[in-house]
């Protein structure tokens, strides 16, 4: 019961400490929210690209672009004989051109630059390399496009973006820790008389330091709540239009999931904010109040 009373009073003191922070609270929380939003953005982008690339990696479809001299039907018949192949669809250059013109609302340009194409569906993703190897032996093939190629490319992009994002986030984290620490230090100085009195009457160390640590945790929590807002908006607006564009430009078809899991990202942001700010406050109180 006594412990609960002390915790309750520690929280009340934390509220006083937050009040003593005044306008600097707004500044610290804003900076912190920007840093966390950036970190969340990195996680969001990473998760979205990963989702796309994983989707690509498990594709059952590839496309064959034929030389103009090759007969699409003969090649399609040859491919269909393979028991690992599920379905073969021919899209002639005329049909492809017509679709392309409709989609991008082209008027006429001289000639049709698109090749005859065969879309091949296989039964299992693991058959892909084997079937492609066999297709390559056929005459009249100009190029084969398949998802794992894109997967590797996207993975490279994802790794670069993620590393860059983590680096920027780390730099911001150092700045954030400094700002939180300085703010807590100022609050400690503004309440130095109270701290001195509490120490001299024998109040336990953690009751004196606790409010300032809660103060830091409060920063982390509020900032993470604010940081998730732009990420939700980004997901709702950009992700949808990105899906549509991506489906248009991709040579293969596949289904998207719902995008990055914002619930998980929010938990990560909250924990990061609380941990970084709490630790920063803890170390500051250790330095300026600790016995």
């Amino acid at each position, binding site marked *: 019961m*006594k*412990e609960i*009373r*002390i915790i309750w*009073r520690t929280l009340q003191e934390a509220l006083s400490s937050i009040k003593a922070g005044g306008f600097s609270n707004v500044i610290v929380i804003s900076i912190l929210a920007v840093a966390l939003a950036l970190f969340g953005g990195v996680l969001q982008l990473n998760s979205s690209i990963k989702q796309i690339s994983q989707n690509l990696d498990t594709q059952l479809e590839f496309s064959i672009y034929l030389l103009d001299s090759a007969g699409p039907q003969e090649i399609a018949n040859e491919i269909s004989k393979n028991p690992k192949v599920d379905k073969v669809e021919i899209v002639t250059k005329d049909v492809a051109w017509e679709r392309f013109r409709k989609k991008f609302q082209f008027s006429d340009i001289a000639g049709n630059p698109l090749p005859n194409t065969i879309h091949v569906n296989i039964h299992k993703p693991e058959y892909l390399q084997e079937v492609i190897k066999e297709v390559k032996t056929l005459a009249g093939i100009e190029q084969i496009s398949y998802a794992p190629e894109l997967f590797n490319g996207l993975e490279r992009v994802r790794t670069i973006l993620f590393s860059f994002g983590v680096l920027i986030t780390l730099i911001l984290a150092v700045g954030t820790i400094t700002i939180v620490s300085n703010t807590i230090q100022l609050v400690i100085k503004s309440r130095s*008389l*109270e701290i*001195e*009195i*509490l*120490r*001299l*009457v*024998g*109040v*336990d*160390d953690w*009751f*004196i330091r606790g409010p300032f640590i809660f103060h830091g945790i409060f920063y982390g929590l509020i900032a993470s709540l604010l940081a998730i807002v732009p990420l939700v908006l980004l997901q709702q607006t950009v992700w949808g239009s990105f899906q549509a564009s991506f489906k248009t430009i991709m040579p293969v078809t596949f289904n998207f999931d719902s995008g990055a899991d914002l619930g998980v990202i929010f938990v990560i942001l909250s924990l990061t904010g609380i941990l970084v700010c709490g630790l920063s406050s803890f170390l500051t109180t250790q330095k300026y109040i600790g*016995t």
Partner: protein
Amino acid sequence: MIRLKNVTKQYGKIKALDGVNLEIGAGEMALLVGSSGAGKSTLMKLLYREERPSSGSIVIGNIDVSSLSDSKIPYLRRRMGIVFQDFKLLPHKSAFENVAYALRGLGAEEYEIQKRVSGALNLVGLLERAFNLPSELSGGEQQRVGIARAIVQGPPLVIADEPTGNLDPATSIEIFNLLSKISERGTTVLVSTHNQHIVENIGKRVITLDKGRVTSDTGPIIRSTGLAQGLKR
């Protein structure tokens, strides 16, 4: 109650205290006198473990203060009340809240806080001004709030470091009378002062420090002097 054995406190090459030996019994009131820089405040700080002695031992009650670990300091300070020259009151809290503040930090129950704070303020004669801010109180009243805060936990020892340093003579006498009253209730009281008029008339034990050494000690005063019979306005 308080026992110092060969206590020395050195700051660099300067000896603030030099081989001090002292014993103050339970319930006794003693005045620590000496000129500025004699070592009075250093001795006080050693007692409430704001400082550690360079050598020697300090025992208060059954607590060996000289070897006390930092984490045990709150335990020691809960067993003593400290009164300061500059009162150290929180300006935005009322007299009642100033006295109650520490009790809240110690986890006391609300009804207990009400009872103890009212009792302490009553003892120092400030119950009627309990909800006044320090800025609405005179210097003497502020110091009485400081004393109420020091005794609110019912400690066996009260240490007052120059409690009348910022007060006029008449108010100083009131404060000393109050500290005498607290001592007569069984609390050991150690007061540092340089108020010669009070020292000569209070009829209490006087310990004189000079250049960090005890140069004279009247020893424990056995007879009860009541409320310092010699002290009259």
